[in-house]
Every structure is written in C-alpha cells, then in structure tokens.
C-alpha cells in the first residue's frame, strides 16, 4: 500500500523475468518475480532502469498491469523512436533480470473500497493501469459497477482483447465498450469513431450518479475525453487523468 512507501526509500531491486506474453505486434506483457515486492495498488507504476556494459543508464516509468496481490506484470508498447521500450518488447526474455523500483503514485489509483460506479476511458496502451483496476475488481469481487470505454485504431491493436471479451461475457457489473477509429472488421458492432461528447454521453453514467472516472492515453486523447465529460456536467474533481506524451519511451 502507499503508506508503506513513506517508511523508507523505494530501493532499486533486480527482478527476474518469469514469462513474456505478446499482446499485439507492438505490445508485450512482462511477468516479473520481484523478491522484495511490497505490493501495489491498482493504477500505480514502477520505474525501470537499464544499464549498458559501459555504465550508461536509461530510466522510464511503466504502469502495472496486474491486480494487487496477483504478482507483478507490466505491459509495454514499443515506441519506434524509443530507447527503453524496444529493449523491453524485443530483447528481454524469461530468465533475464530487470532492475526496477516501486510501486509509485498515490492518486491515479482505485482501491475498490466503496461501491461507487467507475468509468474507465482508455486510448491505446492507456488501457494498462485501467486493466489493473478491472482485474482488481474481479479479484476482490467488488460490486462497484464498472464500465470501460476503450479506443484502439484497429482490432489487431486491442490489448488484452481475449480477456476483455471474457470479462464482457462473464463478469456481472462490468461492461466493455470498444471503439475502433481507423479500421473495423466485417460485421463490427462496436463504435467506429474517435471518442466525442455524444459517445461519452451514451457510455457514461449521468453526472448525478457520482461515478469516479479514470482516463489514460495520449495528451490529445485525454484532453478530448476530459473536455467532453466536463461539457456533460461531470465534476472536474471526479475525473482523474494520466497522460503519456509518446516521447522517448
């Protein structure tokens, strides 16, 4: 829990990669065995540090994908101009070590300690911390109504697609809405446009229902979603955002 972080420094430790899972052509999940992992909250992230033979180092932050208490997994998208993400997606393999510290962040988190509705809005790899929240809800058998609105360019770029399909089919109280903005397969019944105010109106609860909202994606995506929710009358303080600029990675 976050409270433990105040007790001491978040120390660097070498975790062991126990498995990797290719989610899409550009996205990989890395399962890690971190001996001194203090546990985490859904929505938190870790810092990862790579070190070359000559001592050169590069650090980045990655959202945790796994539910609290369900081990440590990160899901990483390869950025073509990136320095760290190509290594994590293409080079790193089971048995390797990976230096990290965490968990980090105490605001963009969902603990599931009340039954308020939760709206999750993801753009691309912004799904990762929100997936931790969905998994957490299922793990603790929360009765908080949860909806995910997930924007991807194409069906092949939908991360966790099979798992989300299973959640949509099986989980009571969890609803999944996809929108594909660039291309849609034949017979597609989901949304087929960028998220706009009307789409948010259809998917979100009324502001009076007091839903907590988590939005994660690129800056342009988050700005558009947050503006749309404000225009629908949602309380700015109910909307938590996490943005990535798509730089460096």
């Amino acid at each position, binding site marked *: 829990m976050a409270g433990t972080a105040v007790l001491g420094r*978040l120390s660097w430790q070498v975790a062991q990669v126990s498995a990797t899972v290719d989610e899409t052509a550009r996205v990989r999940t890395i399962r890690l065995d971190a001996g001194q992992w203090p546990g985490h909250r859904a929505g938190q992230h870790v810092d990862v540090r790579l070190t070359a033979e000559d001592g050169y180092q590069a*650090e980045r932050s990655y959202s945790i994908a796994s539910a609290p208490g369900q081990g440590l997994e990160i899901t990483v998208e390869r950025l073509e101009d990136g320095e760290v993400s190509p290594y994590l997606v293409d080079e790193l393999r089971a048995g390797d070590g990976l230096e990290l510290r965490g968990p980090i962040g105490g605001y963009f988190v969902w603990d599931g300690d009340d039954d308020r509705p939760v709206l999750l809005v993801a753009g691309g790899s912004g799904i990762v911390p929100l997936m931790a929240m969905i998994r957490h809800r299922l793990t603790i058998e929360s009765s908080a109504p949860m909806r995910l609105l997930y924007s991807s360019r194409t069906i092949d770029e939908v991360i966790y697609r099979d798992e989300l399909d299973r959640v949509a089919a099986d989980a009571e109280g969890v609803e999944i809405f996809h929108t594909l903005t660039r291309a849609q397969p034949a017979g597609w019944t989901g949304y087929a446009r960028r998220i706009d105010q009307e789409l948010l109106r259809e998917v979100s609860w009324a502001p009076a229902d007091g839903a907590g909202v988590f939005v994660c994606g690129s800056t342009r995506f988050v700005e558009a979603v947050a503006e749309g929710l404000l225009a629908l009358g949602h309380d700015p303080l109910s909307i*938590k955002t996490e943005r990535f*600029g798509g*730089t460096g990675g």
Partner: protein
Amino acid sequence: MPHFISRGFQGRRRRDDPEGRVPPGQYLTDDFPVLSAGPTPHTPLERWSFTIRGGAEPVTWTWDELRALPTETFTVDIHCVTKWSKLDTVWEGVSVETLLEHVDHHSDYLVAFCDGGYTTNLPLEDVTGGKAWIAFAYDGEPLDPEHGGPARLLVPHLYFWKSAKWVRGFDLRDEDEPGFWESNGYHLYGDPWREQRYWGD
C-alpha cells in the same frame, strides 16, 4: 557492489550531455509532454486573479495588474519527474520576488494553489533571488492552457511538478506542508540533481 548490467542493452545515447545539464535518470526530449492529474481548467482572464495570503494582509493582482508589473524573458532547462528534460526553454513572466516585495510577511514556506485544486509546497528561499517566476508566455506565445495557461509557476531548478500549472496564488506558511503530489508519494523538496523523486529519496 558491481552494478547490474541489462543483458544486450546498448542504449541510444541520442545526444551527448556535454555541459552536464541532464540530471541523473533523465533523458532529453524536444517535445513538450503534458502531465496533469485532472482536466484542464479554463478560467477567463477577466475572472483571473493572483493572491498572496498569509502576510500582514492578503495582496491580490488582477490579470491586467499582474501584466503591468516588470517582466523578464528567461531561458532555462526543465526536468520532469517522469524522466524527460528539455533544454533552453524560453519563457516570459514576472519574478516571484517582484510580487513578494508587495507583501509584508515573515514566512519561510509557501503552498501554491491553482485552478483545479492542485497545490505544491516550496521553501521561500527557492522562489526568491531570481529563481522563480509567474510565467504567462512560452516560446514567444501566450501559454497554452494544457501547459498551464494563462499563467503557471516556474521553478526550473526543482522537478517540474513544483512549477504549478494554472497557479492562482500562494499561501505563506511557517512550516513546510506537503502539497498534492507531495502527499501522493512524491518528494517534499524535489531536487533533480539529487534525484529526489519519491518519498524517502
């Protein structure tokens, strides 16, 4: 203790750091990423004001009054706790020192408050002596709302979350009290050269 080596990692070394201007753990970017905990506020200038509380009496400037104060154009490097650094950014603003000259106080700390509810804490000595500004222009243009416009605090020698966007004033304090990120796992002071990112660093 020998350092852990990441098997097969070369690193891009996209640019050298010839003058030692990139703090540990940071990488350079030419972009200007945006990080905010919530939606971007849009306060009209006619309703905008800047207030310093906690002195002998509160002192408030309207937008026009703030813009009538002497301004400075300055070039600084900025360092975000999410690891990016950006060199030679050009800003225009009013020095915090200029504002504090109008306030009768004996405080050692401040909490900056903002539209949207964000706060951040700073020692007074880190915002005086030409080290901090209320900035309203970036790269010769009015500051974009997603980057903190109409005005943001700029304290470039600390991690960039201290440079509070949408700033509306200061509460002067006798004690150092944690602000928003400082209450959510991030360091109370935030010196990038000592890599003070998180609690306990």
